[in-house]
């Protein structure tokens, strides 16, 4: 018994626990009060408290639950990204939901549970716990995608996401089973040890298992050729949920992929490198080329998120320490500017009554100059212009890839950025260069206080990470050297 109590290490799961507690309080308290503000407020408080626990456990390096859960800087950095995304998503949600009459407490509870799932997913080096986290993350997301119950597109989005997610989980689970068959364990460190001395037959199981796991995660991070579900799901889901989708699960997927392939399958990484190379190239190219053809800004951002997944796969291909910290830095930066872009999209959508066609941006500069400047900032950051976070993120990621000798992949990646410049400039062009249509109503878009805070966070993040990246870079670098 004393052994068991020692194994239970509540301290290291405090961030997850806080979110879950808040989620249940929201669900319980909601029927007791009519004040709608209570749920987002509670969620924000939970995010803050959770953030506090993340910060105090920095550099702690602990494990618990019989080594099933670890607490290293790598997972803490990822948790930082999830909390940032979750917090800003909550901030931009309220106005949007209230306008559509779906401002329900469950929404916030689901978002918190999903975030807790991601945290579990990145803070374990056991395949079973990673799978558990993945499911805790995914289930609430299926519901969130269909949160606009009366909207057919939203229901379609939810159904598609659910089926695709179920497929992905099946692949993943089967892969885990094969790996277990080959090595006799689901613990990544033990897999690594046993794979070095494994027999040829079990080596084969390991390879097939790893490939299956890769497919499962490729679905989750929307990598080519498992990206087909993305545009429909992203378009149908409520926009704040889309914003959340496009960042947090992707970050969780990439982080888990990095941990699994760097630690567990470290010995077979070299064999997988060409596959990652091709996946990275095709993912970014397909994402960018399809984004080029979209007139709907939400769809465009959906496809662009596929392209960004491609850039992140470069880090997985490179597989060196700098690439891991590059991916972490990029994910944080991406969290800031992609969320910012979605925040502006939400403001415009609220004003235009649900349309997110590029024409709704026309003449925005003359009506709301500051908002257009922010739009430009986020678009330039997405496209990777200095001095924004997007530029430094790409720069650091690409430099890691070049260090790993992937010069041609980087050349292809920068050519891809060039394609992306073209479509990222389109909303800017609409906002600044075009004049509003005659019959367009000339009301100013309303920026509510909560959205304003979200904008403030994302703008300062985008600029800070672009101009003074040093501190975050240090954090990202120190996240790598001590992966447990």
């Amino acid at each position, binding site marked *: 018994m004393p052994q068991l109590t020692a194994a239970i290490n509540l301290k290291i799961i405090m961030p997850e626990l806080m979110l879950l507690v808040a989620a249940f309080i929201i669900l319980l308290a909601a029927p007791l009060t009519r004040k709608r503000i209570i749920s987002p407020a509670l969620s924000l408080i939970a995010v803050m408290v959770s953030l506090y626990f993340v910060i105090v456990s920095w550099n702690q390096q602990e494990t618990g639950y019989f080594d099933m859960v670890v607490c290293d800087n790598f997972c803490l950095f990822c948790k930082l990204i999830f909390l940032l995304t979750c917090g800003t998503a909550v901030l931009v949600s309220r106005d949007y939901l209230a306008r559509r009459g779906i401002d329900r407490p469950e929404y916030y509870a689901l978002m918190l549970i999903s975030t807790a799932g991601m945290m579990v997913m990145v803070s374990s080096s056991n395949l079973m716990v990673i799978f558990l986290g993945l499911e805790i993350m995914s289930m609430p997301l299926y519901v969130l995608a269909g949160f606009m119950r009366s909207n057919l597109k939203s229901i379609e989005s939810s159904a598609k996401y659910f089926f695709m997610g179920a497929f992905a989980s099946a692949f993943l689970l089967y892969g885990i089973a094969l790996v277990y068959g080959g090595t006799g364990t689901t613990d990544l460190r033990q897999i690594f040890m046993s794979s070095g001395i494994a027999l040829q037959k079990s080596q084969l199981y390991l390879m097939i298992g790893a490939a299956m796991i890769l497919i499962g995660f490729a679905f989750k991070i929307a990598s080519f050729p498992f990206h087909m579900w993305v545009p429909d799901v992203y378009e149908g889901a409520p926009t704040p949920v889309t914003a959340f989708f496009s960042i947090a699960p992707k970050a969780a997927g990439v982080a888990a992929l990095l941990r699994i392939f760097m630690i567990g399958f470290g010995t077979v990484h070299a064999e997988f490198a060409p596959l990652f190379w091709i996946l990275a190239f095709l993912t970014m190219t397909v994402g960018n080329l399809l984004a080029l053809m979209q007139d709907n800004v939400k769809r465009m951002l959906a496809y662009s998120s596929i392209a960004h997944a491609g850039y992140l796969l470069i880090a997985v291909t490179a597989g060196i320490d700098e690439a891991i910290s590059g991916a972490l830095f990029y994910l944080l930066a991406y969290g800031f500017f992609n969320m910012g872009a979605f925040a502006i999209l939400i403001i415009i959508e609220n004003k235009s009554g649900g349309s997110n066609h590029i024409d709704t941006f026309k003449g925005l500069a003359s009506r709301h100059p500051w908002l257009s400047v922010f739009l430009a900032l986020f678009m*330039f950051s997405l496209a990777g212009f*200095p001095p924004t976070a997007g*530029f430094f993120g790409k720069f650091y990621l690409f430099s890691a890839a*070049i260090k790993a000798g992937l010069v041609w992949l980087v050349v292809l990646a920068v050519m891809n950025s*060039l394609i992306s410049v073209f479509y990222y*400039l389109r909303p800017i*062009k609409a906002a600044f260069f075009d004049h509003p249509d005659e019959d367009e109503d000339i009301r100013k878009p309303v920026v509510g206080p909560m959205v304003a805070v979200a904008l403030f966070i994302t703008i300062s993040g985008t600029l800070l990470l672009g101009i003074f990246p*040093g501190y975050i*870079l240090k954090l990202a670098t120190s996240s790598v050297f001590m992966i447990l």
Partner: protein
Amino acid sequence: MDSWILSIVAFLPLLGAFFILLLPNDHHVSIKHSAWFFSILTFVASLCLLFRFDTVATGMQFVANIPWVSELGISYHVGIDGISLLLVLLTTFLTSIAILSTFSAVEHSHKGFYASLLLLETGMLGVFVTLDLFMFYVFWEVMLIPMYFLIGVWGGQRRVYAAIKFVLFTMVGSLLMLVALLVLYFEYHTIFGEYTFDLLKITGMPLTREMQMWLFAAFGLAFIIKVPMWPFHTWLPDAHVEAPTAGSVILAGVLLKMGAYGFLRFCLPIFPVATFEFMPLISVLAVIGIIYGALVAMVQKDIKSLVAFSSVSHMGFIMLGMMTLNLQGMEGSIIQMINHGISTGALFILVGMIYERRHTRLISEYGGLAGRVPVYSTFFMIVLLSSIGVPGTNGFIGEFTILLGAWSYNKVYAILAASGVIFAACYMLWMYQRVFYGKITNKANEKLTDLTLREKVVLVPLVIMIFWIGFYPKPFFELMEPSVKTIITQVEKGRGMYEANKEARAVQSALDEEAANGNGDDQ
């Protein structure tokens, strides 16, 4: 103190831009005046640089070096030599002139316009003063954003197309440059075990011939597009014609020089062997550009696109001069950068002035203006002659020195390039004749008013510069000479390796031939 002046010069316009953004939207006058005030202040600050500059010393002056992202060896490292000093002065001078010239031309969103111009100035100054490759890239790219807005928001009919074309063309080159820059960065680490983007350290590092060729190509493409050299010039006419006057002035006056400056500061000193290898190719492109630009300029119907194509021709001279790799050619090339900035800038301003009055730039709409607007015509004539390169004006000094250099490098190129001067005389004077001489054929031109006081104030400094360089260019040459000599020494280091390689290849091919002949004999 000295090390701070440079940063003050570079970031004063940025401060100005922020200040303007804080002003109320409808205070047009205060927006204009504060923009002008900040640009003049920057110009004065840059004059301080000139007075404190040591003309004898080689190497960088006013150096400041502060770590920025120390983990990656990125630092805030600035400093100037004679060449960058001249270009800094050109930038601050032309920006203040351009801002003053545009007071009556901007019709809407004043705030954004002047803020963009000042941001652009910081971007350009940053490119000229930085000694850190990372920072160089940042400024190089940053500058695209205000220019994109200047063309896109305040431009002419096809502004949207021109703006996106400008950005995409520039980015094709610069993104490959980014890759090359990173390769260089890791190569330096492999050799010296240190991560750094410091230009002074990277210059002169040992690189194999193949490596130099690749990296030169990647850097060179970015610069060639920016210059622009034929056949990468197609963005230029669109951007120049569609940009508002101030934008065209800056674009032609300063932005194009950044390409040439890039060659001087990065390609030549870092990749000397590759410079020798690429020298013939770039010279040929330059000569083609000189003639092609002139011929296309001749058939333009629009005065502004005529001036734009004349830029292609003039930039060809600058590149030819640089590629001679001798003292005259390179000095001529640099002085011609200044000249082209002044003359073409002035031409765009003059075209803008008449456009404000008549809202057309078609040559056929005009005729006989000389009698109606004599002061304007006189200014136009002076600037035009300087653009052609008539003795006594700045253009003559530049082109003559370049041709001198080119003559000792390759006589055929010199002769072909000289024909460009003759073509320039043709298209410029023919245009002048059609616009200013004869009788007034178009009724609309009868009511034209001559230059206002503000417009004269804009043009007089430019004309003074034209004659100053035309009659007494010595101080300018003195300023750049030590720096040019330094660059030539750095490039000459590559000659040995280049010749050895050439010989080796010649020997190899001779051996191959012999072997082939030998085989033939046996049979």
